[in-house]
Each structure stands twice: as structure tokens, then as C-alpha cells.
């Protein structure tokens, strides 16, 4: 008699997901799936709305990284209003947007690593679930909690002064930006009262990395061997191969590091990327067209970015990047838990870049908006905290949106997350007679490494709530096990 195990809910983009696991008569792995269980229909109901609304409406897909959708939509609208594809904006507009984006990636990564992932490291994957959350961190690691809260606050303040609001701002408009940075805003962030200044943020970014590296030294088994599997990697990189979160060209590599896609104009994404639909999930399954749906899947996000980029254009992060690359002898890093390492290096990069931009006089003055010849179609691509984000719109002669196509970052990681689940199940659950809370959390840890969007908000303040149901082969409920049973 086989078994079906349901883990529900796992929280994810646009709401909730769950995991189902099927085991055979000997409790050995048969199949696992991560189901995305919510659907909202943005692509349809946005039709008929004026194009200039998109940057403020579509960001409401996600309250955790709204800036990413805000900017991706704005970049698509730049193309539509004839302001070019990334290089057409005024220096002021591009730099304000970049500052906004660095603030966003900084706060989102901090939230993910310190608020969500660190409890697994500090208390153990099978640690006491009563304290293995951010409240446990706040009570038992107060210094770290203060650091996490203040780093996130700093990122949110950067968003506020560039976008006008911490969540769902209005700063980016088609063709540019709607405000300058004021001298007061600049000085507050540059030399604000301890700890709210950029130098402190750089210092804490470095100490966060040290924390991870020390942990790694003592826990190589879990960091290196958990959900490690080869894959292709995709990201946007700057023309010269540098890490660039805001604009560039698409590049993909295989698991050995060979470039299988390079120097691709983001406007041409459709020629290279397609998505498959499966009946059991609302999340589609993207792949590189030339390899087909079976072999064309890839990873995105911090790990993929550090794998595809040739270097990081800020000195302290570049030094860390070299250590990161050396760990795999320059070959692509295919270890899921190394997402955390890559994320922490990006936190440092964001802090360094924010300092550079805050010192840039272009933010304080200069033209804000570029105008050009209006078109009817545009693509906006961005490296969001969780990976490559695609927005694609068409409009009619009345300025109404007629088509919206969105491939959100987490969707790109659909198959990788399913493989992480499978890997965790095989490693921790398959063949075991009894399922423990720690085994359930191991499945979460596999998903969590990818920082799936919105679920990160859910863990924003804690962990994925889990319930496991055991069924016999005729789907009769045998047992319900929740973490509350502990």
C-alpha cells in the first residue's frame, strides 16, 4: 500500500502552495510535486487600462519586491514611449532607478537571509520549532535581530526617497523618474545617525558574510550536499559580463559553464524562452526553446547570477566573488544552499553601489524624463531579488494595454524548486518509517533556498506552516501530522 503525503500550505508567489509526495509500499520515493494553488489573472484584467498605470498597478502582484515589478513595467513603458531600451534615459533617471533597485534587493535579501533562513542555521533544520523562527532570533540573538531589522529599514528608506513610498511607490514613470533626491535625503542615508548610515550597512554586510562563511566551515555537509544538482543558469549581465541587476543582455550557461546563450537583447526574449503548462500547478514551467521543455529548464536568482557573471563591479563584493568562484574551481556552482552565500555577496554589492550612487551629483539635479516616438510594444527585463523578471506589453492607439505577458522570477525556478523538494524527500524521508517535524522542515529548507517570492513574505515573519496528511493508496486518510504535534 503506497502513501501520499501532503505538505500544506507552503507559501509562495501570489499566495499559497503545497507539496504532495507519493511513496511506494516500502516508503521509497515515487513522485513529489510543488503545487502553486492561487491564480489572480493580472494578464487579463489589466487589459483596457492605460499603459502609464502599469508601473503602479502591476507591482501589486507582490508586496515583497514591488520595486522589481514597478521598474520592469516602467522599462517596458520606456520602450513604448520611445525612450529606448535602457540606455535612453537621462543619467538622473537611470541612477535614481538603480538606487531604488539596490535598496530593494538589499532589503529583500536581508529579509530573506536574516529573518527567514538564519533560524534554520542558528537553531538547526531539526531544531525546536517553537523557537526556530524570527521571534526566537529576536529573543535569543538580539544583536543579530537588531541588525536585520535596521538593515531592512535602511533599504526601505532608500526605496522611500526614490519611489516616494516604502511599498508600492510611484517614482518610476514611462521614460524616466518623477523626482530628484534632495540633499537632506542624501545626507540622511550617507551619514545618518548610527546605525542608519551606509558605512554601517557595508560593515554589517561584511559581518553577515563572515557569519555564513563560518557556519559553512562547520557544516559542509548540509551547505554543500543538500539539494545539489547540475543545471543550466540564466541571468541578465552587463554587456561586458559584469553583474548588473538593472540592465543588460541575457546570458545562459550549462552546468559546465559553457555559454549556451549570450549577448541576447532582452527585447528578443520570446525567441529564446517559452513556458509549458501542467495541469497540477498554476505556475508555468519556463525553458530555453532550443533545448525543449524537458531539458531546457534553468535556475535564476543570486546563485545563477554569480554563475553567469564574469565579475562584480564593486571592490569588496568582487573580492568575495573570487572566493566564491574559487570554491568550485571557477566552475558553475550547482549547490542550492549556496544561494544563501550568493545572496549575501549581493547584499554587500548593493551596499557598495548605494554608497557610490548616493555620492553621485546626478541624483540631485538634471532632466528627469526622456520623450521619443511612441510605439505599441515593449519588453522590460530586470534582475529582481529572486531572478530574471520579464514584463511584456502591447498597447492600442487609445493607449490601452491590449496584452500583458509576465514571467516572474520565481516561475523560472519552478523546476529547480521541484527538484529541491525531490532531493530533500529522497535524502530525508524516502525509506523512513516515521516522519518527523525535522524531515518536513528539510523539505521547506530546500524550497526556502530559492527564496520563492511572497512565500518570503510569509516567512517574512517566520516559517512556512506545514501540515502533512498520510493517505493509503485508495486515498483514505490515515494520519494527519502537523508541527503542532511537537
Amino acid at each position, binding site marked *: 500500500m503506497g502513501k501520499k503525503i501532503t505538505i500544506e500550505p507552503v507559501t509562495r508567489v501570489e499566495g499559497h502552495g503545497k507539496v504532495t509526495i507519493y511513496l511506494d509500499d516500502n516508503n521509497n520515493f515515487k513522485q513529489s510535486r510543488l503545487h502553486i494553488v492561487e*491564480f489572480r489573472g493580472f494578464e487579463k484584467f489589466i487589459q483596457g487600462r492605460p499603459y502609464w498605470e502599469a508601473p503602479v498597478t502591476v507591482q501589486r502582484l507582490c508586496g515583497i519586491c514591488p520595486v522589481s515589478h514597478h521598474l520592469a513595467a516602467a522599462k517596458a513603458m520606456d520602450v513604448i514611449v520611445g525612450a529606448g531600451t535602457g540606455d535612453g534615459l537621462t543619467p538622473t533617471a537611470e541612477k535614481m532607478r538603480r538606487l531604488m533597485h539596490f535598496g530593494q534587493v538589499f532589503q529583500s535579501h536581508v529579509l530573506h537571509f536574516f529573518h527567514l533562513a538564519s533560524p534554520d542555521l542558528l537553531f538547526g533544520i531539526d531544531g525546536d520549532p517553537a523557537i526556530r523562527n524570527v521571534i526566537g532570533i529576536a529573543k535569543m540573538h538580539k544583536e543579530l535581530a537588531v541588525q536585520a531589522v535596521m538593515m531592512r529599514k535602511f533599504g526601505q528608506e532608500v526605496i522611500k526617497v526614490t519611489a516616494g513610498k516604502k511599498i508600492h511607490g510611484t517614482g518610476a514613470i514611462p521614460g524616466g523618474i518623477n523626482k530628484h533626491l534632495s540633499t537632506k535625503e542624501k545626507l540622511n542615508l550617507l551619514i545618518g545617525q548610527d546605525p542608519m548610515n551606509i558605512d554601517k550597512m557595508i560593515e554589517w554586510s561584511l559581518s553577515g558574510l563572515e557569519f555564513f562563511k563560518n557556519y559553512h566551515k562547520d557544516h559542509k555537509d548540509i551547505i554543500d550536499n543538500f539539494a545539489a544538482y547540475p543545471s543550466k543558469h540564466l541571468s541578465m549581465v552587463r554587456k561586458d559580463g559584469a553583474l548588473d541587476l538593472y540592465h543588460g543582455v541575457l546570458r545562459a550557461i550549462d552546468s559546465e559553464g559553457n555559454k549556451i546563450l549570450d549577448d541576447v537583447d532582452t527585447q528578443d526574449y520570446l525567441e529564446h524562452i517559452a513556458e509549458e503548462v501542467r495541469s497540477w500547478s498554476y505556475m508555468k514551467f519556463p525553458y530555453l526553446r532550443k533545448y525543449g521543455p524537458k531539458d531546457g529548464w534553468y535556475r535564476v536568482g543570486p546563485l545563477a547570477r554569480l554563475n553567469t557573471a564574469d565579475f562584480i563591479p564593486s571592490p569588496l563584493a568582487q573580492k568575495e566573488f573570487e572566493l566564491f568562484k574559487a570554491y568550485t574551481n571557477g566552475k558553475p556552482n550547482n549547490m542550492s544552499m549556496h544561494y544563501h552565500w550568493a545572496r549575501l555577496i549581493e547584499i554587500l554589492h548593493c551596499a557598495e553601489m548605494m554608497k557610490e550612487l548616493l555620492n553621485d551629483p546626478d541624483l540631485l539635479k538634471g532632466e528627469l524624463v526622456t520623450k521619443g516616438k511612441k510605439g505599441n510594444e515593449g519588453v522590460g527585463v530586470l534582475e529582481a531579488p529572486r531572478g530574471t523578471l520579464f514584463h511584456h506589453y502591447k498597447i492600442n492607439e487609445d493607449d490601452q494595454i491590449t496584452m500583458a505577458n509576465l514571467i516572474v522570477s520565481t516561475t523560472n525556478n519552478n523546476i529547480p524548486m521541484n527538484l529541491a523538494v525531490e532531493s530533500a524527500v529522497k535524502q530525508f524521508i524516502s525509506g523512513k518509517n516515521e516522519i518527523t517535524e525535522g524531515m518536513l522542515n528539510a523539505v521547506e529548507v530546500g524550497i526556502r533556498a530559492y527564496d520563492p517570492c511572497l512565500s518570503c513574505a510569509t516567512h517574512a515573519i517566520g516559517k512556512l506552516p506545514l501540515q502533512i496528511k498520510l493517505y493509503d493508496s485508495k486515498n483514505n486518510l490515515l494520519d494527519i501530522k502537523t508541527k*503542532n504535534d511537537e
Partner: protein
Amino acid sequence: MSKPIVATTALAGCFGCHMSLLDIDDRILQLVELVDFNKSPIDDIKTFTKKCDIGIIEGGVANTENYKVLKEFRKNCKILISLGECAIMGGLPAMRNGKDSIESCLKEAYQDSPSTINKNNILPNDEELPMILDKVYPCHEVVKIDYFLPGCPPRADLIWDALVALLNGKEIDPEYKTYKFD
């Protein structure tokens, strides 16, 4: 005396309201001393283990799962707060109400999208997926809601002041000028 117990959930929302709750910044360290959390994304409590004093709801009701969770919250919480536009009036997801049928939304996303290759015209349809409702409902059309905090998302200070008032046994009565609707 035992601490007041708070539960929170996100229904059909974007989690921005939970993010705004986090934007109370260092006051979050005070909050965890002032209250205990029960069923919430904040911890691993999947089903209510005791009656709660305050339930905070983000998001509207868009599918059968949202409906079930909201009913559970009403049953287990003395005070329910609709936090943000989606909970109060369906918000952005409710733009489909009266405009686009759920079939047309699914068709657009899974069959007509230019990046989608779907020769067999499959739509997500599986016993593991909850049923999508005909429209997005505001929470107060499903259960009684005691307080409404507007904003998309509500400002962190508004949330903090509301919680402080309730924890001191007072009504939530924010100054009119603190109400923001965007």
C-alpha cells in the same frame, strides 16, 4: 497575566500589508514582548491552538481556501481587522470582478500568452488546486469584520497605533488625516 494573542493571515493579497507591519521596524522587537502569536505566517502554528484576541486579515477572498481560512479566523478571534485595500474591498485582484470571467483569465495566462506553448490547451485543473471563486469578495461580505485599516498598504504607523490602542483596551480610532488610501 497572560499576554494578548495575535493571529495573522494573508488571503488573496500581495503580502505588502505584512511587509508594512514589518515596517514598524525596531518596534517589532517590542511587539514580540507584548503579544504572543498563534496561527500566523510568523510561526509554525498551522491550525488554531487557542482562542485569539486579535486576528489580522490581509487580502480578499478569491478561492475556496481563502473562504475556509477566513471563516476559521472569525471563529477563533475576538476581534478581526481587515488590513488594507484587498481585505476591505478586494483591491487590485478584484479588477476582474464584473469585467473578466475566470475562464477568460485562465485562457489568457495559460493558452494565449505569447511565451506559452500549450498544444493540448491544458488549463491548471487538479484536485490539489482550490476552486477559484466567480469574483473576489471583500472580507466583510463573508464574515463580520470589527475594524478596517485602509491603505495599499496601510502605513506602518497606522498599524502600530491600532495595535497599541487594542492592547490598551481602547477602540481603534485613528485621526482622519492619518488615513491614506494609496
